[in-house]
């Protein structure tokens, strides 16, 4: 168990600034998710914590101790690599066993631990195969097993579930959540699946171009995105972002007129999540337009309305039916759940 602190760390590859100077504290026993689009520096950040990548400047502290110059093996971490990093000349069993072997665990314990861990990731039947004889998802589970076979002070997991099918992913997610509950090991977890981030994290760090743009609980990030980028990135389907202006206390765009607590200004983006919108028959509703598309997702129907450049999606009842191109009216459920951003800077307003 350990607290990890990144103090003013910065990473440059030659002249390219991969991670600009910033700080981040990961609390003892916390499950922190790094979430962000491809190439935003998630893996780089993780490799710096692991000690696989030199940091250009700043300090990394683990358990209050500066570890900048400590080799990876002395940092007491276990890591799942994005591209697995399995040992090709060893069987699945040997792969999983290797960390235990290196730490001098006796043979009987090793055997029991390997069995137990393999069962957790549903690999029991494949223990005698080599990595080359496994599918991508199976390899990924070996990588996961190799990390969780030991109880280190810190887990670093770089997209450990990205190659699994939907069903297995949900199972493994629950398994990881349980494991974290059971062991309480500080975990840094990289993903670009926001569902994974939401369900697993104590806190989520949303990254963009190397910078952490918001660090908060999943709930808070979902309810109060710090800027346009986070607003658009979190949530599926993503938040409706409507370009318009505020005049006389009302936000206006084609077919949209919603009262907002904001002074007159141009270049405003109004954000509202599909599930925060009701579908009504009231012709005087704040949002009006023509029905553009209906998508049944199973538990609900996504209703998309268009009016000029504005396009608004709402989550309606699964039984909702209407003609395409027929007039359609939407109303926000709760004014408090409306977000306003500045178009130019992306910053949250009000």
């Amino acid at each position, binding site marked *: 168990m350990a607290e990890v602190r990144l103090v003013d760390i910065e990473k440059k590859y030659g002249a390219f600034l991969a991670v600009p100077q910033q700080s981040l504290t990961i609390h003892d026993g916390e499950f922190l998710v790094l979430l962000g689009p491809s190439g935003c520096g998630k893996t780089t950040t993780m490799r710096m914590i*692991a000690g*696989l990548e030199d940091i250009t400047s700043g300090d990394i502290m683990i358990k209050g101790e500066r570890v900048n110059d400590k*080799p990876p*093996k002395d940092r007491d971490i276990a890591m799942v690599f994005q591209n*697995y990093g399995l*040992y090709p*000349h060893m069987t699945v069993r040997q792969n999983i066993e290797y960390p235990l072997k*290196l730490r001098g665990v006796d043979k009987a314990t090793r055997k029991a631990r390997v069995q137990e861990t393999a069962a957790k990731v549903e690999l029991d039947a494949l223990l005698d195969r*080599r990595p*080359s004889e496994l599918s991508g998802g199976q390899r990924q589970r070996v990588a996961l097993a190799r990390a969780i076979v030991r109880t280190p002070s810190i887990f670093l997991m770089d997209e450990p579930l990205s190659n699994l099918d939907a069903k297995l992913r949900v199972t493994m997610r629950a398994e990881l959540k349980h494991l974290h509950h059971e062991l309480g090991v500080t975990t840094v977890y990289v993903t670009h699946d926001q569902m994974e981030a939401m369900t697993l994290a104590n806190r989520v760090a949303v990254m963009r171009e190397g910078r952490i743009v918001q660090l908060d609980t999943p709930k808070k990030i979902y309810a109060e995105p710090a800027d346009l980028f986070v607003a658009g990135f979190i949530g599926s389907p993503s938040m409706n972002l409507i370009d318009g202006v505020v005049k006389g206390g009302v936000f206006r765009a084609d077919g949209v007129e919603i009262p907002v607590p904001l002074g007159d200004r141009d270049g405003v983006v109004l954000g509202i999540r599909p599930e925060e919108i009701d579908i009504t028959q009231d012709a005087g509703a704040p949002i009006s337009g023509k029905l553009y598309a209906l998508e049944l997702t199973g538990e609900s129907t996504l209703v998309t309305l268009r009016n000029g450049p504005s396009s608004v999606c709402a989550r309606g009842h699964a039984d909702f039916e209407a003609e395409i191109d027929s007039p359609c009216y939407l109303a926000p459920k709760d004014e408090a759940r409306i977000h306003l951003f500045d178009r130019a800077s992306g910053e949250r307003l009000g």
Partner: protein
Amino acid sequence: MKDRLLPYWLLIPAFMIVLATTIYPLAYSFITSFRAWDLTKSRRPEGFVGIDNYIYATGESQFLNSLWVTFIFVITSVILTVILAMALALLLRRKGPMHTFTRIILILPFAMSPALIGVSYRFMFNPEFGVIANGLGAVFPALQGVPWLADPQLAMGILVLTDVWHWTPYMTFMCLGGLASIPRETEEAARIDGASNLRIIFGIILPQMRGVILVMAVLKTIFALKMFDQVVTLTGGGPGTSTETLAYFIFNVGFRWFDMGYASALAWILTAIMMFISIWYVRMLLSERKMATA
């Protein structure tokens, strides 16, 4: 119909050239190996003698000596070259400031002709004016005046040395290529799992280099079996017959004693040894492929 046959027609000239330059001499020497042919007496092969030439070889001490010399030479030079090349590659794989420079320096010995290497080493080990002989003598007085190339064991040692010196750079480059193809993460994972540097080299890197090492060992073995130039220019097979390799002995039989039938038989024995090693190698490689392609 005509179009489909055209490629084959076009291949005929190339095929003829191959036939004339390799297949024909090979077949001819194979047949010759079953005949008596003393070049001093006859310009054409004489009568067939069955496998007499081969049987004669099994009892001839000079042939058996050359076989033994070749064996010692091949084993030591292959093992030394492969180990040295691997070690150098492990040192050189990280891109340091001298990266390009070291690589250029490295390729120089391989660019030298083996015959020239033999001559230059012969001079360098001359007890009277050789650079190396004098240098060693100056640093270690006990080595003053050692007749390097006149001592059977030392001569063999120097022969191996020149060969290792010649081949190590090339093999180092092969190793570097192999090392570059190992996924970086396997080493990093081991590092995190707690493996020491030595353990990473022997437990993670070398097992993944098996295929490359196998190719290197076989290539080097075949080249060492054929090694000829340095024997001629460095030791001339001596002192005595202590560095007389099979290739050099075959040359002597054919072009000093002009016994072409016997020389052909010996050449085919050498070919058979090389073929045997190649086949063994292909089989190893196939099983290797099956085992480790991640």
